[in-house]
């Protein structure tokens, strides 16, 4: 075990820090609103042009072929510099790892560069009105088009983050209704401009219109819209879910930056009664970083994301809530004012719900990590 960075890694950090300090935009409005989204898209273009959008990707897709450790360094520096939310995240952090794993060469070549450049913006199409935690209950259907030109999609997806502003959706559709419910699902890549697709945005608890529902009525997509094998979509989707829970979605730099801001807030308003809570929250952000280094060490050595990813998701989502709750208690009566901490708190509250509710994660930990009986 060696917790020192190499010279190359330090050089990478210095380069990232210098560029970010010079270029990170200040005061962008939320990217989960129509005008804010447009500004964030411009920022994503800047990142892409400077080859900072997708550092770990191959060069031909706009990356730098950075190692996982360098990716972590970039994330630390990004959040340290106060970099804004990544409106491309569902594409670059969730779909892309799955594309690298399951995509055809043609899919990778056509999708990844446009995704990295924020020309195509991807949203997730998992949840349906009757399929949230119970994802395998989805009813949206895909049937082969009579002409053989591809697939016809019908159904409704909902709680789709930034769906109203995105151009494409990835999600699961039922292709074999007679199969056991985890089988007979297929993973589709759907352009939202396709005929028969209607998107309706709606408001979220935090005040942004960042949610959408997506209606599909006989929408035609080509054969190349299938990612992985037909009827094997569950396995493909679980790969995306593993990325979402374990690593790429929530890097430690994000929470360490929040913890550092919490410490600053405590210094401005040193409340002795909250001292231990501040320190414990800060310590947990450290623990998350160290755990991530353990995970990355394992993945860099050829390991794969397993059910342990659920532990990671539980930890970061509950850490985020704790960090913000502690800040609000330091703010006292000002906690109710609209501001970065109250906004962040409301967003943090979504963490234990999205990417698989924490109740589901605890079931996964109990059954698949600890080996407790299913029933």
């Amino acid at each position, binding site marked *: 075990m*060696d*917790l020192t960075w190499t010279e190359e890694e330090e050089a990478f950090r210095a380069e990232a820090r210098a560029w970010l300090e010079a270029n990170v935009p200040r005061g962008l409005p939320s990217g989960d609103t129509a005008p804010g989204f447009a500004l964030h898209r411009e920022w994503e273009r800047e990142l892409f042009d400077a080859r900072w959008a997708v550092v770990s990707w191959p060069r031909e897709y706009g990356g730098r072929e950075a190692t996982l450790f360098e990716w972590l360094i970039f994330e630390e520096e990004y959040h340290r510099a106060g970099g804004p939310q990544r409106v491309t995240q569902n594409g670059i952090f969730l779909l892309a790892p799955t594309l690298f794993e399951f995509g055809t060469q043609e899919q990778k070549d056509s999708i990844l560069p446009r995704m990295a450049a924020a020309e195509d913006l991807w949203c997730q199409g998992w949840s349906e009105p009757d399929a949230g935690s119970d994802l395998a209950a989805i009813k949206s259907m895909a049937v082969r088009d009579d002409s053989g030109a591809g697939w016809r999609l019908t159904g409704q997806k909902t709680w789709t983050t930034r769906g109203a502003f995105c151009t494409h959706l990835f999600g699961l559709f039922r292709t074999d209704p007679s199969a056991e419910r985890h089988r007979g699902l297929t993973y589709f890549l759907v352009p939202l401009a396709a005929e028969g697709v209607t998107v309706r945005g709606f408001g979220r608890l935090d005040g942004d219109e960042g949610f959408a529902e997506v209606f599909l009525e006989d929408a035609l997509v080509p054969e190349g819209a299938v990612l992985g094998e037909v009827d094997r979509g569950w396995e493909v989707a679980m790969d995306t879910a593993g990325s979402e829970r374990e690593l790429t979605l929530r890097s430690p730099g994000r929470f360490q930056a929040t913890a550092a801001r919490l*410490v600053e807030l405590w210094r401005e308003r040193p409340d002795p009664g909250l001292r231990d809570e501040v320190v414990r929250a800060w310590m*947990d952000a450290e623990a*998350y*970083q160290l755990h991530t280094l353990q995970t990355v060490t394992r993945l860099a050595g050829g390991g794969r994301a397993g059910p342990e990813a659920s532990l990671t998701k539980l930890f970061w989502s509950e850490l985020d809530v704790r960090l913000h709750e502690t800040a609000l208690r330091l703010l006292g009566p000002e906690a109710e004012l609209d501001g970065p901490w109250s906004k962040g708190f409301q967003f943090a509250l979504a963490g234990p719900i999205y990417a698989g509710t924490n109740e589901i994660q605890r079931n996964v930990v109990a059954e698949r990590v*600890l080996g407790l009986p299913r029933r």
Partner: protein
Amino acid sequence: MLEKECPPAALRRAWANETGRVPGLWPKLCAMGVVGADAAAFSPLDLVLVLEETGRACVPEPVVGTFASGPGGGAAAATGLGLAVSPLVLYADSVERLVLEHEGGLWSLPPSRASLAPCPAVDGSRRLFEVSWDPGDAERLELDPRSVLDRAALAAAAQLCGTAQQLLDAAVAYAGQRHQFGQPIGAFQAVKHKLADVALRLEFARPVVYRAAWSMDPVHVSMAKAHASQAALLAARAALQVHGAMGYTVEHDLHMWLKRAWALAASWGDAAWHVQRVGEAVLRDRAAAPLDSPVSPGPGRLGTGR
């Protein structure tokens, strides 16, 4: 080795014998290089997993005190350690030497030159003593009490991880066997989620402990002891609840691990004590940005070969 030499039956016998220790176990730990003169060749990082295993087996031996005090008093000399933060000395009547804090320094003397008053503990294998002694009878050591405390806290943190793991494993096994309402109790979500929470705290305590073993930075050690203490106390609480009335009996082995977790969590600075120390570094003395503060040196590969 520990499964063979220190099974629950041996621990149970130690609870009832004269010293609270397992006869013949200490020389075997020394021969393996876990403690004693041979262990001096190893770094804390080399030993952290072994220390964890001594916690898993609930080893009733002066492992922490001897590890913390370093070599001295002979190749296989066991050491009883008394510091201001944990003044009662474990196994003071059966070790070869005592290392005691006094006026900011550390002193060594044989137990025969001290007066020992036993202090009965909840964990029957932990024989604690109040030690009265005269510095005129002792030798002044060139050791910094703070670094000895850090080594003791690290060793206790590693043991707490092992103890917590054993408590979790025992609870998982019991929840799979025990049937109520026609199904294993481990199939109930209330039980599943309780044990998942233990797995969560333990999973995130371990890398903190390993980082501390690597750096031996006092603030890292404090984070390790606080995280490990919290994880072990949660494990103890959940394991007892899952075992129900069965776990509340002395016939079942569980109580020996529970009591060890409580004892280790309270020793060498409890979680609150160490959080206080981390707070001094984080809130006052050092830069707020954890990303480049000395509290958090540039991390890299965290692998333990587990």
